[in-house]
């Protein structure tokens, strides 16, 4: 049985000009030990669908789904309190801006121990030991000393490592990484991706990576979902997606990569007419 199974997820926001559908009937499933990448441009609804699964959307959002199962429990039927027991523990998320997602007023040690205090039955000494262990696992030098550091004393890459440490603190079954490397340099990006994949393999987690970077997809994913304007354009394993893309949108996306350029000009998405691509992909 799959770890996470979502069928026909729809997210709507009420706006002054009527309801806006940010996610339009997306279905997906992630197995244990699987890396799923969701690719799409801004506005394709990739982050919103993951926030809906985590239950982190504001009350203005209307979330419906035919099915929303995580590890055998129906997320839609859970009350707020029960849901909070799962989120951060069995299902954790890392965000794009590491600097902005840590609280600047507290030390990183406090922020790691906070998750352990809420979700795990540990005393103070155990929490401290676990925090040191986690910082070591995410590759931070002198972990015991760094517990007392504030986020501003660390670099962007180190902050993202701390975020990962918080996310994996309770050994989650599913980790969702929303553009985990977009704000980072290429060399640091490589380190963070390697770390995520290493932890995923060690703990046998399911991992969802949201990204707009086709290179990141190629380097990490087992399976890929391509989204455009809230709809799923294509779902395929990573090799067939790059070798023989089915939908026109994926083809357009791949040919817009500068490394695939053949002439002096790059083909653009509008050359392919995305609306026609949507019509073609619904079959």
């Amino acid at each position, binding site marked *: 049985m799959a770890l996470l199974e979502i069928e026909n997820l729809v997210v709507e926001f009420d706006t002054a000009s009527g309801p806006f559908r940010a996610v339009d009937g997306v279905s997906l499933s992630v197995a244990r030990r699987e890396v799923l990448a969701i690719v799409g441009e801004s506005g394709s609804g990739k982050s919103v669908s993951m926030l809906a699964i985590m239950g982190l959307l504001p009350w203005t959002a209307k979330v419906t789904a035919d099915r929303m199962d995580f590890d055998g429990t129906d997320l839609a039927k859970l009350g707020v309190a029960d849901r909070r027991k799962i989120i951060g523990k069995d299902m954790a998320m890392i965000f794009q801006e590491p600097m902005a997602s840590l609280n600047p007023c507290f030390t990183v040690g406090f922020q790691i121990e906070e998750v352990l205090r809420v979700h795990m039955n540990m005393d103070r000494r155990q929490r401290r030991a676990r925090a040191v262990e986690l910082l070591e696992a995410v590759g931070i030098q002198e972990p015991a000393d760094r517990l007392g550091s504030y986020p501003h004393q660390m670099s962007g890459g180190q902050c993202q490592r701390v975020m990962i440490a918080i996310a994996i603190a309770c050994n989650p079954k599913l980790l969702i990484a929303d553009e985990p490397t977009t704000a980072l*340099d290429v060399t640091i990006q490589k380190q963070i991706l390697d770390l995520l994949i290493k932890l995923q393999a060690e703990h046998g987690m399911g991992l969802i990576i949201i990204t707009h970077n086709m290179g990141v997809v190629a380097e990490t994913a087992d399976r890929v979902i391509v989204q455009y304007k809230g709809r799923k354009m294509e779902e395929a394993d990573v090799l067939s997606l790059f070798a023989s893309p089915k939908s026109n949108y994926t083809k357009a996306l791949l040919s817009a990569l500068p490394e695939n350029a053949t002439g002096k000009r790059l083909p653009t998405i509008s050359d392919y007419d995305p609306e026609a691509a949507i019509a073609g992909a619904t079959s």
Partner: protein
Amino acid sequence: MRNVVLEARDIVRDYHIGGGLFSSARTVHAVKGVTLSVEKGRTLAIVGESGCGKSTLARIITLIDPATSGELFIDGAKVDIARGGLTPELRRKVQIVFQNPYGSLNPRQKIGDVLGEPLLINTGAPAGERRDRAMTMLKKVGLEEKHFNRYPHMFSGGQRQRIAIARALMLNPSLLVLDEPVSALDLSVQAQVLNLLADLQDEFHLTYVFISHDLSVVRYIADEVMVMYYGEAVEYGSRDEVFSEPQHSYTRTLFAATPRADIDSIKARLAAKTAA
């Protein structure tokens, strides 16, 4: 004939950080002696990670900051803004496009005024002429007449970057410095903006200094490549030289870290994963 638009010799830039109550004063060497030259109509790409001094170098080339020492020549004439100040003629020759199109446009200024402002400040062109030239440039970068009286928030990121490029071209500069112009944009929009830059370069024989950390973009657009690391140029040569035979270990690290989207490397990765 070689027609060198930009030449820099041993550019050094130090920043002095004043000591406070608890710390003593110190000096940061942001750029440590960079030498470069770009010919007319060519593109030099400067690559490096954050904090390596590439944006500081861009500010010196664009005549925003003076260099601490070193010589800068634009169109063969020596320029020193620390001493001579910045004249309107110089400002006309060099323009810059910044990374974040959301931060680089005044939210309370209409697009027509954004484009007319460089002419207002640096030339004596009357209002009617400013308006006509702004309109022509707006169409040149792929926007329409109806966009003239709109505000920046009404545009998407790609359109805003087009506006920023249009503003930089209003004074017919010979040198355009592009500081990460596409890194905030989506893949498809990135392709459109790169195409626009290539078209404009052909039409106006523009010289580009293109600052980026994305090697695939650099490989596509550049004629020459400079790799910077901790304020020094560790690698400088033609694109093919740098990409086929990187000399410095940092350049090789950078290449190794760049994610690859070709089928062979995906196959290799999947094979390694099954073996493990």
